[in-house]
């Protein structure tokens, strides 16, 4: 009984910080578990404008091609021209809030832009860059 009395308040204490755990932090931890380390916002930024020519591309592709270099501004879909809401969480709080959405777009957009899925290291670098915007 005495042990129980000690454990219960402790559980409550540990439970609270979890409630506010950041989506991005959780994803970064997941990438670390897959072998990635030392995430770098600088590397993420460099790769943001890096140009790729995957098979089937008629012009060089980059993240910035659709999302732009200033992430606080609205982007534009390279093919359809449809506006893309700003990626910067500072101006668009809906961004980086949903892990499933983040992974879905990594899969789609890395495949189109780079020609393969991004590695956990690359995704971690991107998120480290994006979250600062």
């Amino acid at each position, binding site marked *: 009984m005495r042990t129980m009395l000690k454990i219960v308040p402790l559980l409550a204490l540990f439970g609270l910080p979890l409630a506010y755990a950041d989506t991005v932090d959780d994803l970064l931890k997941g990438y670390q578990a897959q072998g990635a380390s030392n995430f770098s916002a600088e590397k993420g930024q460099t790769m943001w404008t890096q140009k790729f020519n995957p098979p089937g591309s008629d012009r060089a592709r980059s993240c910035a091609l659709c999302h732009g270099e200033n992430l606080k501004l609205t982007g534009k879909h390279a093919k359809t021209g449809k506006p*893309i809401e700003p990626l910067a969480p500072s101006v668009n709080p809906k961004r980086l809030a949903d892990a499933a959405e983040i992974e879905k777009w990594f899969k789609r957009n890395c495949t189109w832009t780079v020609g393969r899925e991004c590695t956990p290291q690359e995704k971690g670098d991107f998120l480290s860059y994006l979250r600062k915007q």
Partner: protein
Amino acid sequence: MKHLFVMATSLVALTSSALYAAEAVTPAKPAPTATERYTAECGTCHMAYPAGFLPARSWQKLMGNLANHFGDNAELSDASRSQITSYLLAGAGEKTQDRHAARFAASAPAGETPLRITELPYFKREHREIPQRYIREAQVGSLSNCAACHTKAAQGSFREREISIPGVGRWEDD
């Protein structure tokens, strides 16, 4: 007395952790309807085209190859894909209540499975008088950009009197 105090403290702690657990487990909003999901998943990159514009066999084929969606990767979670596929099949050209939309799908040649609405004979016929230079206009870009000229396309309405071509204005068939 001391026991009572400890019990009370634990009770408060238990309640708050239970509250927290309830908050964490319960989703913030209800699951999206099929229409909401279609608009959210497909309408991010292009207009969420009315389901009635393509025959069921076309939607089936298109939804079966989202990894190569006109050169783009548009893969969805299994749950989203199956919900959206059901929605599109239920409202496809053969089933839609919209008589105008039904003409698009009905014009698809038997034995063919067109994937682009813009390739359907009825679509081509309806747009044959539109000069290329109107389509090349920056705000239009492509015939697939319905809403550039059909001002109520997003609401599924394509009446002639609602047409306004960028840089040209109203359009009336001869």
